[in-house]
């Protein structure tokens, strides 16, 4: 089966982002395909390469980078949500004249069309909030 995921929750609060990463790993281990993970609203904070977490807590970014590097999973941050939260890629930081990119390069910054393309091309769209 082909899956796509929509992540709405911040990695700094609640359970949604962590559950989504574990879910993504599990569907791949069961032989499914993961077409795309789309991060919207507070979910775009998942892609931050500048967040600093307490050392005794789990790394919130690493599981996603692993999914991208080991399984080629496409990770997309919604551009309007990302900009509001200071999540910029190389291009965005230049265009808006900010000090530098803040989104990890494993993530693409793009529009909501990528969510609808994912829904159209997947058998399952699973949303993670909270």
């Amino acid at each position, binding site marked *: 089966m082909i899956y796509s995921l929509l992540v709405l929750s911040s990695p700094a609060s*609640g359970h949604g982002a962590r559950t989504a990463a574990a879910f993504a790993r599990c569907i791949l281990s069961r032989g499914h395909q993961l077409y795309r993970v789309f991060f919207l609203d507070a979910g775009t904070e998942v892609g931050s390469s500048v967040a600093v977490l307490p050392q005794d807590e789990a790394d919130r970014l690493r599981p996603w980078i692993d999914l991208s590097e080991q399984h080629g999973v496409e990770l997309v941050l919604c551009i309007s949500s990302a900009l509001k939260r200071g999540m910029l890629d190389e291009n965005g930081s230049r265009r808006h004249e900010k000090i530098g990119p803040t989104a990890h390069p494993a993530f693409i910054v793009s529009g909501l069309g990528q969510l609808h393309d994912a829904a159209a091309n997947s058998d*399952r769209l699973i949303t993670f*909030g909270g």
Partner: protein
Amino acid sequence: MILHTLATTPGRDAFDNCLAILSPEDAVVLLGDGVYAGIRKTEACKRLRADALAAGLIERLGPITVVDMEGFVSLTERYPRQLGWY
């Protein structure tokens, strides 16, 4: 046939909104803050082992089935639509 993922405490509106449209052909996965619904002995619900453990509810499960991530994924294989409540 709807797979509801309920990630809010029973005190929040989203919880009641979800229960209002439940039907016997649906399944509910309690996750995140949703696991506290276990205290109310809500029937026919499933919950994630990790969240239940974190909330200290693993000993008080009652009629709810505990599922791990594999179990959660297998439910998404069976149900064509998932609706998240949080």
